[in-house]
């Protein structure tokens, strides 16, 4: 869709915001996108003044629920939408207001957007033809990329005659053949079934390492983002909540939303009592890796698999880290058992999810059993909100 551009917005967009020169592949500076609202209503802010640097050669994911602004951000980098304000630089070249055909990036679309009236080879050659690289060069590069995505022998098929996975490869080949400086991928695996999706995740990652091109990958699937990315940016309502490597995003979520959106998590309200000590709602004191001043109310996030269970009457030398509770539910999951434990005491008992390995020798607990829940101070994250 091409929408009317607001002239005043354009002014702010072109205004040199003078971002420091970086060696980033993609650099967003104060990028904002407002869409006109309905009649008489306020414009909708889809992306709200985000700053982001994506390094050369990085596999970078924009992760968030639908409507968080991740696709709009990608479309602004591609040139399908123009930013209402801010600057977009690709290898230090300002591209914010350039049309898509003038940008050194290519896109793999969610729907693949293969040209149905062209064969696989014609689809792949389209970009090279538009760039006028010459007949021989085109043929050579098309053959090369067809080999890369393993589509030999299907050059003369029409997209409709291919399976979903093969169409996905054509879409990838059609973008990669142009040797873009940055490849943009908009939920490219969304239309595939689970098994194929998992295979393609690994293939995509390997391909990215092989061609060495910067990938910007949009997804709402946290597992996909964790598996493939070098770095992840978690988005919500047009804001970047946290940017970092997958381990950091998973182990050290900074906000309630990130902790909740990525994997499962237990949120515990607590108050800082002393340096490195927090008191939970039930009165138990736990150790913390935190330097918040005493008296601050905080939320702790602990992953279910970082929690351990022991019998209530077991040896008590870890008391500082343990809270007492009752097993409310035990669910067998094959490789693990998921427990729901009601923590007693405090104003109201609250449930905690625990995942305990199912290897031989590990203790199992029955519903109704009195237990203590323990964790190491380093596996609890203190959230900012």
């Amino acid at each position, binding site marked *: *869709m*091409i*929408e*009317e551009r607001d002239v005043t917005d354009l002014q702010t967009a072109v205004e040199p915001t003078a971002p420091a020169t970086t060696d980033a592949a993609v650099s967003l500076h104060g990028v904002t996108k407002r869409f006109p609202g309905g009649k008489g209503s306020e414009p909708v802010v889809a992306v709200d003044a985000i700053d982001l640097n994506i390094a050369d050669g990085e596999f970078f994911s924009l992760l968030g629920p639908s409507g968080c602004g991740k696709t709009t951000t990608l479309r602004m980098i*591609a*040139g*399908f939408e123009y930013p209402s304000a801010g600057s977009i630089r690709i290898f230090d070249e300002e591209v914010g207001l350039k*049309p*898509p*055909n003038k940008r050194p*990036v*290519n*896109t793999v*679309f*969610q*729907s693949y*957007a*293969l*040209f*149905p*009236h062209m064969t696989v080879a014609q689809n792949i050659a*389209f*970009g090279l033809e*538009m*760039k006028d690289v010459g007949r021989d060069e085109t043929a050579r590069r098309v053959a090369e990329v067809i080999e890369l995505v393993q589509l030999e022998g299907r050059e003369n098929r029409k997209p409709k005659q291919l399976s979903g996975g093969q169409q996905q490869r054509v879409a990838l080949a*059609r*973008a990669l053949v*142009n040797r873009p400086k940055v490849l943009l991928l908009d939920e490219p695996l969304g239309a595939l079934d689970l098994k194929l999706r998992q295979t393609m995740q690994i293939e995509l990652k390997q391909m990215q390492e092989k061609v060495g091109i910067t990938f910007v990958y949009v997804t709402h699937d946290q597992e996909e983002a964790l598996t493939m990315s070098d770095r992840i940016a978690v988005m919500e309502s047009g804001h970047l909540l946290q940017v970092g490597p997958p381990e950091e995003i998973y182990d050290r979520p900074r906000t309630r939303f990130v902790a909740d959106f990525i994997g499962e998590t237990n949120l515990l309200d607590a108050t800082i009592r002393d340096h490195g000590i927090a008191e939970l709602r039930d009165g138990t004191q736990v150790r913390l890796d935190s330097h918040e001043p005493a008296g601050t109310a905080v939320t702790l996030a602990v992953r279910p698999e970082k929690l351990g269970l022991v019998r209530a009457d077991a040896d008590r030398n870890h008391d500082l880290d343990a809270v007492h509770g009752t097993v409310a539910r035990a669910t067998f999951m094959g490789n693990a058992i998921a427990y729901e434990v009601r923590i007693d005491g405090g104003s109201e008992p609250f449930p905690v999810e625990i995942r305990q390995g199912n290897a031989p020798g590990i203790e199992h607990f029955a519903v109704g059993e009195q237990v203590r829940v323990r964790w190491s101070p380093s596996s609890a994250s203190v959230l900012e909100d």
Partner: protein
Amino acid sequence: MSIVDTGDSTAAVVQDSVARPRRTVDRVLAGNAWLVFLFLYLPILVLIVLSFNDNDRVGVWTEFSVRWYGEMFENSRIMGALRTSILVAVLSTAVSTVLGTAAALSLERFRYRSQRAFDGLLYLPVIIPDITMAVMLLLFFVQAFDIVLLVTGVGLSRGLGTITLAHIAFNISFVALVVRARLSGLDASLEEAAADLYASRWQAFRRVTLPLIAPGVAGGALLALTLSLDDVVIAEFVSGAGTTTLPVYVFGALRRGVSPLINAVSVLMLVGSILLVVGSLAISRRRTGG
């Protein structure tokens, strides 16, 4: 669609109703179908048969002859009217196909102020009666020519030009309607993909959009051609003295009484229309079949 979903059980029900003795209803329905066919095609058959009648009087059969076809091709007024019809049809189709396609593209691909109003207004010519359209256009041409005369001193008169303009005016709507139906089924990201692969706006249209909407454009063009060749009312109003299209000629001739010559002309127009319809069917089938 419950009929499809329920599968076997529905098939059984259908078989049931066929097997049950509801013969009278079936017979009445079958008889009705035949009557409808007869009603539709008997006049055409009569027309074709009588066009090969040798007699001067329409209602009296003498013997088979192609005499009226010979006279038709030698009649300079009929041939002149045929030429005018074809010229008007081809010109108005060419112009309205380009403008109608452009209108469809702008309505389907862009968002702008007063789009709704434009949308509604564009389709008005499809629903307003021919006679209203004819009166409107006549008034318009009379007024416009008066103004031109007043301002430039050039006197314009109605004729081939005004008929062509009038046909363009209503054909744009029909072309836009048909092309838009095709466009709405087209994934908008295909054009984005073309732009992403370095195609300019024009290249994207030429290489991706146009080939994909071509069946719609061809269908719209054939519809425009047929409508233009068929039109009597509007052409009658906006044509000047001396310029006549074939349908207008037939209409005028009928007022002087039915002649076997008119039968032959009618058959000629019938054959022309059938060829156009068959042509458009062939195009759409080849496109969807591939």
